[in-house]
């Protein structure tokens, strides 16, 4: 309870300081808008629907791309861990592409797919895929061999051992890979949306960029706040349940 009060007090003071600096008129209000005008922008944008639509467009790209990245990444990671041949081919590619900042896929995606939804999805998938492959591969390799041995003496065979033992045993690694994939996908999508206009839908990144073009600083800061909130919510909704499960079962520390 005391901690909560401290947090609330801190943010109230922060907002107060912000408002006070604006009133001092040290900088032009075009560059430093007041918290009140940012609030007005957010409320207005929610009421006229632009913010809701933009959020929906962005989240749809992100979730579909992320889901596809997982759907391909998990099995491919299992393959690279299981077969030497896959490790030496796909594994090397994954390792290389993982070091490539995923924004660097944007120019290629634009040339291949044009200014379309497909280009956006492609960027998100590339952000997710490689880190999921590598995390899964890593997770499987660190599973203590004794688990598989114990399972085999109980009559577990190949596929059953993989599905019921190897994959759940590597969950801590897989979840942290999923988190990293999410972070990469989110960052690269924002960059792509700022960078290119896709006519089928204006995402949060586009709104942010229009804010700059219109010199509407209240819009810029407002959208930035929305992006922060979405990031926090995604962490809570997508990953907290997994982390709670890992914490309960493995006794690992909550991050």
């Amino acid at each position, binding site marked *: 309870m005391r901690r909560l009060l401290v947090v609330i007090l801190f943010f109230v003071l922060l907002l107060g300081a912000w408002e006070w600096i604006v009133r001092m008129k040290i900088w032009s209000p075009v560059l430093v808008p007041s918290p009140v005008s940012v609030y007005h922008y957010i409320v207005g944008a929610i009421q006229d629907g632009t913010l809701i639509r933009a959020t929906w467009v962005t989240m749809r790209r992100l979730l579909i791309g992320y889901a596809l990245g997982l759907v391909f990444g998990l099995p491919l990671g299992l393959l690279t861990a299981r077969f030497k041949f896959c490790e030496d081919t796909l594994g090397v590619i994954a390792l290389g592409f993982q070091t490539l900042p995923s924004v660097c896929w944007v120019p290629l995606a634009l040339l291949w797919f044009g200014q379309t939804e497909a280009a956006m999805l492609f960027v998100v998938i590339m952000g997710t895929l490689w880190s999921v492959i590598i995390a899964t591969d890593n997770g499987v390799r660190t599973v*203590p061999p*004794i*688990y598989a*041995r114990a399972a085999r*003496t*109980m*009559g577990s065979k190949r596929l059953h051992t993989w599905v019921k033992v190897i994959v*759940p045993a590597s969950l801590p690694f897989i979840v942290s890979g999923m988190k990293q994939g999410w972070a990469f996908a989110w960052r690269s999508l924002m960059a792509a949306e700022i960078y290119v206009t896709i006519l089928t839908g204006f995402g949060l990144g586009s709104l942010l960029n229009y804010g700059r073009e219109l010199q509407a600083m209240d819009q810029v800061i407002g959208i930035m706040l929305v992006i922060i909130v979405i990031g926090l919510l995604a962490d809570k909704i997508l990953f907290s349940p997994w982390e709670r499960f890992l914490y309960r*079962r493995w006794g690992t520390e909550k991050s």
Partner: protein
Amino acid sequence: MMAIQDELRNVAPEKLVVDGVSKWFRMRRVSVHALDNVSLHIREGEFVCLVGPSGCGKSTLLNIIAGLEKPDRGQVMADGKPVTGPGRERMMMFQESALFPWLNVMDNVLFGLKLKPNLTRHERVEVARYYLKLVGLSKFVHANVHELSGGMKQRVALARCLAPNPRVLLMDEPFGALDAITREQLYGDIQEIWKQRRKTIVFVTHNVREAVCLGDRVVLFSPHPGRIQEKFEIGLPRPRDINSVDLAKYSTEITRALKRHLKPGLMEVAE
């Protein structure tokens, strides 16, 4: 005529027959001769302890009996049939508990039962509860693995091994990582369960006293290459107390034999 000869010779098929088993481990530079022509006959319901210093191949032999590893020469027969792979009828227990951390206690015990055909969900749960009660963990059915102490983990592992009702239990230093008091409790429990459930048990340890306390027979191995040196029948009444004087006599004798077979410089054996 031949048939009658066979009839006369084969009185009753032994539960486990290890017949001339040899095993090498080939590594990049060296080849380790782990087992050299080891033969051992184990009767139904017998409790056999394999003792020896580290590197004598006793764990390797256990893995071969389990079917987790293949011998380079010789073979293992279980109930008269050659062992070709792991199977439910020979359950293995390891030094570390090898419990699955993503499952709770109940689901760990259910793991092997789910692989056993012709059981309803309800029956499986009943069986799992029975064995968890047998090892004294009725209250921890829904606990997570990391919440248990080392001794409790090994009890769950024991329940998990017993649940599919194997005829043979293979135990690889199952109490090696536990403290002395927990270990003594488990000596009592394992003897009780062995008596009650009539299992054949092959138990690997480097602790001579432990072997004498538990085994009908103690088989002494010597290393480099792994060979059987001597076999000792332990004629003590059960249940046995590990601190009794009679037991100490046996373990002194076996320890002496152990030291005799060790080459100088290999005295790393625990009492």
